[in-house]
């Protein structure tokens, strides 16, 4: 019973995005954009001027909001805050690392697959750390 963590159900949860301009614009065309009464959006456009602190703060904000169920983050942006992404353990919101235009998806960097990798071989994990 102690291990049964209750899942927060929701009928209209949001998809948050931390990605480059084209990805965010495209996904907003699909209708996932949300702006609340306090003019807070569910997306952050990352460009050359965006700092790591901004990305960190936005990530923390999105992962603590109760109305967000999935956080999409470009993999190259996730690498900027890798320690934060890898230490995230909650089932909701689900963190998904997506490819961007200039950075294709690399399964070896995916946090979900990294967590499962050690089950198959301890040596491969050790060699990666070197």
């Amino acid at each position: 019973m102690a291990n049964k963590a209750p899942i927060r159900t929701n009928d209209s949860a949001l998809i948050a995005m931390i990605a480059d301009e084209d990805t965010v614009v495209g996904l907003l065309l699909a209708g996932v954009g949300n702006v609340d009464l306090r003019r807070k959006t569910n997306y952050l456009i990352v460009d050359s001027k965006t700092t790591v602190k901004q990305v960190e703060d936005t990530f923390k904000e999105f992962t603590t909001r109760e109305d967000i169920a999935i956080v999409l983050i470009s993999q190259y942006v996730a690498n900027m805050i890798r320690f934060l992404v890898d230490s995230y353990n909650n089932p909701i919101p689900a963190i998904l690392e997506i490819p961007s235009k200039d950075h294709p998806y690399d399964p070896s960097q995916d946090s979900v697959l990294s967590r499962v990798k050690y089950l198959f071989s301890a040596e491969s994990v050790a060699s990666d750390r070197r």
Partner: protein
Amino acid sequence: MAELARTDEIEMEVKKTDEMAELEVEENQWGEPIEDLEGEEDRNKAVMKLLDSMDGYLTQFNSLSSTLRQGWLDLASARHSMGTSRINYTLLDLKEHAASTSLRVISDDDDDDVDDSTRKQKPRFQLRKWGSLDNQTFSAEKQRSKEEHEESSGSLKQRHRGDSQLPECASKPDDGAQVQIDDKEKNERSKSLAMFGTLVSPKLRASQLSFEKAIEAIVEIANLRSEILAASDQVQRILEGSKKEILSLNSKRDYKKGVKETRALNEIEEPRD
């Protein structure tokens, strides 16, 4: 007196081996333990589930990559034909508005997990595209409700037999509802495109469809992520259980060896006395 003490010792050892024999694992002709087949099946099932969900996860990611690539290409083409200033993040609507496409999150029990005490709930995501449930999930739910209806009590079945027009009547409102859903989708799509102007390039519309498809893949990936995490937890628990089992088997085997050797020694020594 020494003989009495020795027989007492032998009796104590026999009692211990009898107790151990109750917990003993069967051995084959080579002295290797014969494993519990049911437990082996559960272990294999858990590992297969993990591998299947990982395979699905990677396949969906490949599909997402190609869909996103198509979307970016169409967006770039639209930007080329309409101009960079017309497709820009500065044009995004910052007025208060709710998302047209959202998610429904439900809790799903991990039924494949054999161990009730450690069974966890995992989230399941359903896409609500343009305000309604995704067509696929909607039809799946309809099928499930139909199956539940067929499996229900005999009185309901009798009603169905009596009223043959029921299924025909049921299909008509569905068609009407589907038309309404399609109209609603068209309106929402147009609203979404309207932030870039009234007349937009067909490439922008194509890009919108690509990104809609990408969202569907993303929701599927999120569900597979939940499956992977649940399955990996289960496999980890099995591994920990197997380690404990191996350690206890080894200690039992060592104890049995020691007892057999002691008995053999005593049998050799007894005739001397």
